[in-house]
């Protein structure tokens, strides 16, 4: 990969990281506190079977949503569109 392309890639990556950082901050501020209470209720009520499966379900669902979001961000980095010559052989 030539230096110019590398510089563009690094700049785009920094921008994407900053954008993603904002999304993470928004999640921490608005979504995480809303999930905390119902999960803690399940946990403290000794309803561990429901807690375990609900937890795994949340992880899977969030994983699929994040996959879509991060795939979009990665496509914005144009990594998928670099020519084979840019890759190490």
């Amino acid at each position, binding site marked *: *990969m030539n230096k110019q392309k590398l510089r563009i890639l690094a700049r785009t990556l920094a921008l994407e*990281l900053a954008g*993603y950082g904002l*999304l*993470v*901050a928004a*999640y*921490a501020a608005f979504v*995480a*506190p809303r*999930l*905390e*209470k119902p*999960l*803690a209720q399940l*946990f403290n009520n000794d309803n*561990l*079977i429901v*807690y*375990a*499966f*609900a*937890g*795994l379900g*949340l*992880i*899977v669902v*969030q*994983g*699929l949503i*994040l*996959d879509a*979001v*991060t*795939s979009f*961000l*990665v496509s914005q980095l144009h*990594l*998928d569109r670099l020519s084979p010559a*840019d*890759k*190490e*052989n």
Partner: protein
Amino acid sequence: MEFVIAGVTISPLLLAGIGFLVGILGGFFGVGGGFIGGPLMYWAGVPMNFVVGTDLAHMTGKSIIATRRHRAMGHVDIKVGLLMVISSIVGVEIGARMIEMLKEVGSVDVVVGVTYIAIQVAVSLFTAWESIRALRIKSAGGTAAKDAVGFQSFTKRIHSIKLPPVISLPVSGIESISLWVVLGVGLFTGILSGLLGIGGGFVRMPLLIYVMGIPTHVAVGTDLFEIIISAGFGTITHALKGNVDISMALMMQIGAAFGAQMGAVATRFFSGPRIRLAFSALPLIGAIMVITRLLSG
């Protein structure tokens, strides 16, 4: 932010940062990253009983994302993953029983610690030696660069074992291999997981490449696929014992998601031998951590 379940207050951004770091490692090397994620969580203030279970929960989510990315690039052999899961489960049970036997003798820590160090150092040295050899073969122009392997004679000998049933693995480019080899690799990794309490990615990745002859990129993706199942199972069992803080795992997953994507995409820009050479440093980190723990009592 206060995480009520674990009973601690930790910055969610710190957790997302740890997830991001572990995500990059997982996406690039196909390992769960528990060897580095666990100590970092403990350092951040997560109680020890929540470290393992919560790390497994976030590992499940991260591996889903990395596996999907690898699958889009054609780097996941589902057939191998599913076959190995079956024998891995049996292996984990055997490993767990071996622990119980060692407990009776009263030498669990020493035996497990020394076995762990010996295996990690052996995997590290062998992978480094082989990948340097493969890079030399590659630079001599003898082999297609993408997946030169400096240890092919052993793999060929394994492939020549025709103990029935013999199966083919088209995604991995293997025309025929005994089913017992695939199950044996799964069983061996499972025993180590049960005995040493590790995810097994460290050992499974090299075995997929050198014993089964699976190309490095496919080995990384397939290993991640297997981590989804094993870490998902581990999440359930630990959560039932009350050792998982799901909100914490969800926060880590947010960071890990982007890291896993970056790591997975990065594999496209490195040849198999270079990925393996970089991988060879990882087991040493794990070994150093165990040595430190043993020495500090």
